[in-house]
């Protein structure tokens, strides 16, 4: 149920501004890949091109190819709505739908496109998704309560449950723990470890220890200066990036000498 991603010569633009230049990267199925790098280096921007969320912003566009098991997401006739239902996303700040109950939040994606689902199936999916997000025991007695009443960490796991309920091929996470306390962060990190058994997970993080803890492979992005495009500097096994990087700038960054 998971697919690999191959990106070829991808340039990402905001209008005429080139934000990310010439990225080529291969992300293995059923693995956790971390994107690290200083603020503004384009790692979140690049992540958002993988499920075509980048183009939601006015004037934003890309050149190049993103292949999901060989199918170009930017090919002619590809519907971004279909792409996004295959590639889920978890955002920086927890964003459960405030007007929906916990139950409706989890099932929100499933009920899209006028899909009908029986109550029994819905209940089973609800429990499976919430268990998958390690949230079931905490919320099983208040499924009808609003999702916005949960703690920040619980909300973020609710968002993960919502993302896995639609059974995507890939889950993208854009700094999923940056708004969470250490305990909640640990819960989400444990969850990421479990998710890779079934999904391809790509995570953007500012926290290098987190990248080291959760990821199999790590990509380091950097930017030459303000106004310059971000670039992929180095991509390798996480242990290589942190212990024996090939590039000087990678070593400077992971050892805390800048950024």
């Amino acid at each position: 149920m998971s697919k690999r991603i191959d990106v070829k010569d991808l340039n990402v633009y905001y209008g005429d501004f080139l934000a990310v230049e010439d990225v080529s990267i291969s992300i293995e199925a059923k693995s956790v890949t971390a994107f690290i790098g200083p603020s503004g280096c384009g790692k979140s921007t690049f992540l958002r091109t993988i499920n075509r969320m980048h183009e939601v912003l006015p004037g934003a566009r890309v050149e190049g190819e993103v292949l999901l098991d060989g199918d170009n997401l930017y090919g002619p006739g590809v519907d971004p709505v279909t792409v996004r239902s295959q590639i889920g996303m978890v955002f920086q700040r927890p964003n459960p739908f405030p007007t929906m109950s916990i139950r409706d939040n989890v099932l929100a994606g499933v009920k899209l496109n006028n899909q009908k689902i029986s109550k029994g199936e819905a209940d089973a999916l609800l429990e499976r998704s919430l268990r998958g997000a390690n949230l079931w025991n905490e919320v099983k007695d208040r499924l009808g309560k609003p999702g916005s009443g949960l703690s920040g960490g619980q909300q973020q796991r609710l968002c993960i449950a919502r993302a896995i309920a639609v059974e995507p091929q890939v889950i993208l996470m854009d700094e999923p723990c940056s708004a969470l306390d250490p305990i909640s962060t640990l819960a989400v990190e444990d969850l990421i470890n479990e998710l890779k058994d079934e999904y391809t997970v790509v995570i953007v993080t500012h926290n290098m220890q987190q990248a080291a803890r959760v990821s199999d492979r790590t990509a380091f992005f950097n930017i030459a200066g303000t106004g310059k495009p971000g670039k992929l500097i180095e991509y390798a096994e996480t242990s290589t990036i942190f212990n024996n990087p090939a590039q000087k700038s990678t070593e400077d960054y992971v050892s805390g000498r800048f950024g």
Partner: protein
Amino acid sequence: MTATSLTSSQGAGRAGDKIFSGAALAAGCLILAVLFGVALFLVVQAIPAFVAPAEDIQGGEGFFSYIWPIVIGTLIAAVIALVIATPVAIGVALFISHFAPRQLASGLGYVVDLLAAIPSVVYGAWGAAVLAKEITPVYNWLADNMGWLPIFAGPASATGKTILTAGIVLAVMVLPIITSLTREIFLQTPKLHEEAALALGATRWEMIKMTVLPFARPGIISAVMLGLGRALGETMAVALVLSSGALTASLIQSGNQTIAAEIALNFPEASGLKVSTLIAAGLVLFVITLAVNMVARWIIGRHKEFSGAN
């Protein structure tokens, strides 16, 4: 160095604080005082109409018989206006906030705001001179084909000066109010929630259904209530458009009357008890508006837990 006492509270900043809080308190009190004053005036001036013998009131059957047909007429006109204006206004607002290209959206928003600035007498004149004439064939068609419905019972008015025409004119008048307010609220939907919906694979319309409309729900209700307030109280346009008469079920015959237009048309020549009767009608309108607002508050408050404010 001298020790500063914790209890002393001097300095310009403190004075500014006091002046500001005093001014804010005064403004708040003034609103209450004005509202109370209006209510008091209405009640005191209306009492003679309530206690007068039935045969002295216009119509000769007491105040209640006088007032209830025009209360119904007022509500009919306002409901027609809202039924027409609300969906159109929400559609226009959604188009401006979420569908139109940015340049077109700002131009369109400006035009809608301009629409709100047109004086009501102009709308009234347009309704009486143009709309009423142009719409008579439609009324005839309705009478012929849907006449079995009491509200479209024939024969249709030859002049077109009916409560339905008045309602349509009112709809055009409240449209910019509802559009402007709902557009602002639609634009305030958190991007985070819109993106959450899109990232789940929602189409643009599904995203609007999942995030924008639920988020804007209290705001839509408030906007509709403001529009309703205008429709209930609108005087000039109704007075010009409607050829008033007794309460009639058919919307396409002449007849019916609204409270505001009734007061405006009769007040200049009224004296004595007649003045009291009209002011009592004003009091009834005041109470209706108050009740409508309270119901709206209640509807908004009912779903507080899910409003996203927490």
